[in-house]
Structure formats: structure tokens, C-alpha cells
């Protein structure tokens, strides 16, 4: 029977070609979309690595005229004033490389036996605690690191996995920026400071005991939810120290949501387009099958007369369409497989495999659903009537 159906499909290759093409193209489109979506959702599903609930960030600037000693004193006083509020748990300083604000600072160095590359965030001693990072190996910064010979850094697990494998990393020293030796004091699970969908997992928090720049950011960890009037108080307290009020305070939680939305919108749009695509394929397929089966009524009558059961009629029609589908999918898979084989895009292969499976599953399901009813109808054709019509 299988061979018979293959013969039938081969002899009707011209009319089956369009169906094949439809399946093939649908697979390619679904595969592409699902790869993209899988990739993003898999990134989304990994932990972000820091706390955003009840954390504010103030982008601050100290006047150019202020000397460096006053600069340092102002930073000390801001912390002192803010920490005096019972609503505030802690304040940490960083450069302007703040989560979700799209600024980057990256370093690489080739003299370590390999090319070490990482995004780097400058952080003071309070920063890791304010951001509530998860140290999985070693320790976080402490005051004594300020007097140590090497700059202390925390690295992410992603960076560790990429460069160090099973090797011991805590307390090891690597050359970075300007041949300066940096010492890894600990590993944190993640630091997706570009947002939940970010794929950048090589990040270092570099300990800066004194951030000297006049541009800096203050991360403020609150004790819990507060009203807008408290933000006003914080504003006033900071303004009182730096003698200017042209700065903004942002809520990390809101920033995080806004950043994620930039990804959700296209993902949902793509899903809707795919939904329409699938619906179109389904309707087209249903129409074609319906038409074909009506055109083949005399054939069905004949087959029934010479001994085909209802079941063999319906399974013949379903198998015919499934075979064409499989050929379409096979050719589609061949092209899709070039992506992981040739490594054209730098994403993990597993994303392609999920997308292949998903696209095949969706198409086969749609084909089965669409071919079920017409095939049942075909099986119900009355042989005497169908043979009479010709």
C-alpha cells in the first residue's frame, strides 16, 4: 500500500508540487520565526542576576568647578544623607553603565593565553549588596580590596563557563585594561544588565573604591514600596549636597519592563503573523483536499467496488497528503540544518533544534487536522452513486 501511494504521488507530481512548495515555505517561515522566538525566550528564562524591585537609580553629575576632594566628600555625604532615611536600605555607586540604560563599557586583552573579553561595570563596595547579586563562588568585594595590589572583580558564571571551564578562577589574576592585573574574587550567577532578553553573559563588576568621575550613578535600595512624596525627599537630599537639581531618578523595575516590552512586541507580532500563516495554510490545504477528493469521487467509487474498505479509503487520502508533507519537511529540514552546520549565526544549536521540532509539529498537526474531515467524507462516498456519475 505504501508503495502504491508513493507511485500515485509520483505520477501526480505536478499537482502535488504546489502542495509540497506550500509545506516547504511554511516550514522555512515557521522555522525562522521559532528560532528567533526560542532564542529570545531561552534568554528570557535565565535569571537576570540582580534585584530590580524597589531599586532606584539616580543619574548624577557634579559641577566641573568642584575639586576632586570635594567631589569625594559630596559622594560620601549623599550616602550619609540617604542612609539616614529609614525607607532606604543602602546606596551603591557605579559609573554610568547602569542596568537597562544601553551604555556599555567593554575590555579585552590578548596576553592571558587567550583573548579575554568582557563587559565591565564599575562598582563601589556597596553596589553588589544594593543590587543583591548572587555570589556562587568566592566572595564579594570588601574594604580591604581597596588596598590590595590588584583590582578586585566579580565575574559572571557565563564568563567563567566561556573562558575557564573547570579551572579554578577565584583569586586568579588576569591582565585587562592597560595591562592592569585584575583579580577575580568571586563569581556571580548572572548580570543581564541589558534586560531579561539579553544574551550577553560575559560581565565583570570591577571594584572602584573611589569613583572619581563627576558623572556617576547612585543605586538606591528601598525598604519596600514608598509614595511619590518620598522620591521628592530623596531628590531634595541629593540636590542639597551637589547643589544642582537637573538630575533624574528612575525606577529599575519600570526600566526593566520597558526594556522587555521592546522584545515582547515583536515576538507577539511574529506570533500573530505565524498564526495567520498557519490559518492560511490550513484553509488552503482544506480547500485543496476538498476539491481533490470531490474530483476523485469516481476513483473512490471504483476502489470501494473492488474491495477497499472505508478505512483504507480515508487512510489512503491521509497518507498521500502526509507523504507530500514529509517530503516538504525533509527538504525544509535540509536547508534549516545548514544553519547549525555552517554556524552562520552565532547562537546555540539547541535553538535550531527546538525550532525544527516546533515547526514540524505544528505543520503535521495542521495537516492532520485539515485532512481528517475530507478523508472521512471520501470514505463515506457511496460507490454505486460515485460510479454512476462519470
Amino acid at each position, binding site marked *: *500500500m505504501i*508503495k*502504491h501511494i508513493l*507511485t*500515485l504521488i509520483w*505520477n*501526480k507530481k505536478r499537482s502535488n508540487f504546489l502542495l509540497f512548495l506550500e509545506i516547504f515555505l511554511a516550514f522555512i517561515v515557521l522555522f525562522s520565526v521559532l528560532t528567533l522566538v526560542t532564542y529570545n525566550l531561552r534568554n528570557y528564562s535565565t535569571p537576570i542576576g540582580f534585584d530590580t524591585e524597589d531599586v532606584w537609580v539616580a543619574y548624577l553629575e557634579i559641577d566641573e568647578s568642584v575639586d576632586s576632594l570635594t567631589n569625594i566628600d559630596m559622594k560620601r555625604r549623599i550616602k550619609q544623607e540617604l542612609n539616614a532615611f529609614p525607607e532606604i536600605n543602602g546606596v551603591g555607586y557605579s559609573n554610568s553603565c547602569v542596568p537597562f540604560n544601553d551604555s556599555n563599557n567593554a575590555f579585552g586583552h590578548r596576553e592571558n593565553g587567550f583573548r579575554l573579553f568582557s563587559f565591565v561595570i564599575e562598582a563601589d563596595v556597596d553596589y553588589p549588596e544594593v543590587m543583591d547579586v548572587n555570589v556562587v563562588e568566592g566572595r564579594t568585594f570588601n574594604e580591604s580590596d581597596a588596598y590590595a595590589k590588584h583590582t578586585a572583580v566579580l565575574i559572571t558564571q557565563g564568563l567563567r563557563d566561556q573562558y575557564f571551564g573547570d579551572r579554578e578562577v577565584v583569586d586568579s589574576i588576569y591582565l585587562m585594561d592597560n595591562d592592569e592585573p585584575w583579580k577575580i574574587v568571586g563569581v556571580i550567577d548572572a548580570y543581564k544588565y541589558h534586560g531579561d532578553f539579553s544574551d550577553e553573559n560575559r560581565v565583570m563588576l570591577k571594584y572602584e573604591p573611589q569613583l572619581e568621575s563627576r558623572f556617576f550613578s547612585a543605586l538606591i535600595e528601598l525598604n519596600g514600596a514608598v509614595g511619590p512624596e518620598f522620591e521628592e525627599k530623596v531628590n531634595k537630599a541629593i540636590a542639597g549636597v551637589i547643589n544642582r537639581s537637573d538630575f533624574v531618578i528612575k525606577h529599575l523595575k519600570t526600566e526593566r519592563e520597558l526594556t522587555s516590552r521592546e522584545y515582547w512586541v515583536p515576538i507577539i507580532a511574529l506570533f500573530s503573523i505565524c498564526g495567520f500563516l498557519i490559518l492560511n495554510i490550513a484553509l488552503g490545504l482544506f480547500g485543496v483536499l476538498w476539491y481533490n477528493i470531490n474530483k476523485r469521487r*469516481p*476513483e473512490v*467509487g*471504483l*476502489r*470501494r*467496488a*473492488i*474491495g*477497499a*474498505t*472505508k*478505512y*483504507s479509503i480515508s487512510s489512503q487520502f491521509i497518507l498521500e497528503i502526509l507523504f507530500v508533507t514529509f517530503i516538504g519537511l525533509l527538504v525544509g529540514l535540509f536547508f534549516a540544518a545548514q544553519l547549525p552546520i555552517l554556524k552562520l549565526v552565532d547562537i546555540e544549536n539547541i535553538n535550531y533544534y527546538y525550532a525544527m521540532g516546533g515547526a514540524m509539529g505544528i505543520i503535521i498537526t495542521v495537516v492532520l487536522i485539515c485532512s481528517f474531515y475530507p478523508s472521512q467524507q471520501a470514505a463515506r462516498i*457511496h*460507490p*454505486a452513486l460515485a*460510479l*454512476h456519475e*462519470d
Partner: protein
Amino acid sequence: MISLQNINKVYRTKTIETLALNEINLEVSEGEFLSIMGPSGCGKSTLLNIIGLIDEPSSGNITIANQTVNGYNSKDMAHFRNEKLGFIFQSFHLINDLSVIDNVELPLLYRKSVSASERRRLAEEALLKVGLKNRMSHFPAQLSGGQKQRVAIARAIVGKPNIILADEPTGNLDSAMGNEIMNILLQLNQEEKTTIVMVTHDESMARKTNRLVRLFDGAQVS
């Protein structure tokens, strides 16, 4: 071989009710070549379809090849048709997308435990009998009407049925081709002892058979 008792067939549509067969009693013995004649619409095809188990009577009893088929479900009937019956139609009913040999093999495909090589062998044998072995890989569109009907005969005999049911097998053919087909049927009847029931409009064809039954308005008149 075939025994029909008090067969009635009523077609009901929204507007009218047609009594297509009216109290038909018919006995066909083994090895007989029976022809059925009658004006258009008198119920010949209906009768043949009922004998062929592709249509059911409104009432009456049917015994074919010593089996009372009244209690058969659709699957039993399909198997019965496949093993005991061969069909030949006026309009051939070949599947255009299959080659001649594939068309002939078709009934064996619905029979369990016939290997592919055995199917091929039997189909070639059947084509040899109708003189078309050299056209095996042609497609129906490349054949003349007479050749198509010979392919249909090969398909009807490939499963070695007890009974062949032919509905106006020469109806679409000119007389020369018609005679050719008739000769093949006669040969089958004489040499293989196949029971044949044939509907025809052609007196001369009917005269060549063992017995003639005439229908008029669904009833047997002779």
C-alpha cells in the same frame, strides 16, 4: 451461484419515489453467462449493483457464491467484493494517474497476503489474457477505448473472481471493438467457467450469451 429473492429497491428523493426494482427473483447458476436487457431507466444498473453488493436492496434476500450476505457489514462486503466479484463498467473507470499494470494490480492491493511480486505476476498474466502485455507501462490516456476496456477486464479477472458483473461493457465502443471485448468475455466464461452477468443494449451481444433476462420498469418480463 447467485440467488435473488423478492428484491425491491426504492429510491426516495424529496420530490419523488422511484421503484427501481420490483419483486425481482433471479437464479444464476455456476458458469452461466447471463445478459440483462431493457429500456433505459428500467433498473438494470441498479440490479447489477445490488448483485455486486455496492448497493443495498430495500427488501429481499441475496445469496451469492453460497453465502447469504444480508447480515454483512460494510467491511465484510468490501472483502467479499474483493475476493468473489469482478466489475466492468461502461466508462471503464481506470485510474488515470496509474499505469496499466498498476491499474490491474489494484484489486490485489486490497487483499491481504499477496506479495508485490505475486501481484505483478498475476497482473501480467491477466494482461496477457486480454492481449495487452506490451502496454503494461502505458497510462490510460494513451490507450484506445477498446484497449481501456481490456485493461478493465484484466483488472476484473486478476483476483480470479467467481463472478464478473459487466454494466454495458461495449456501450462506449464501436462494433468491432465491442466484438473483441465480447469474445474475451465469452472465452473467460468458457475456459475459466467464470459466471458472468452482463447488462447490454445490444441484441446481438445478448444472443451470444446463455440466457437473456428482460427488465421493464423494474420488473422482470422474461
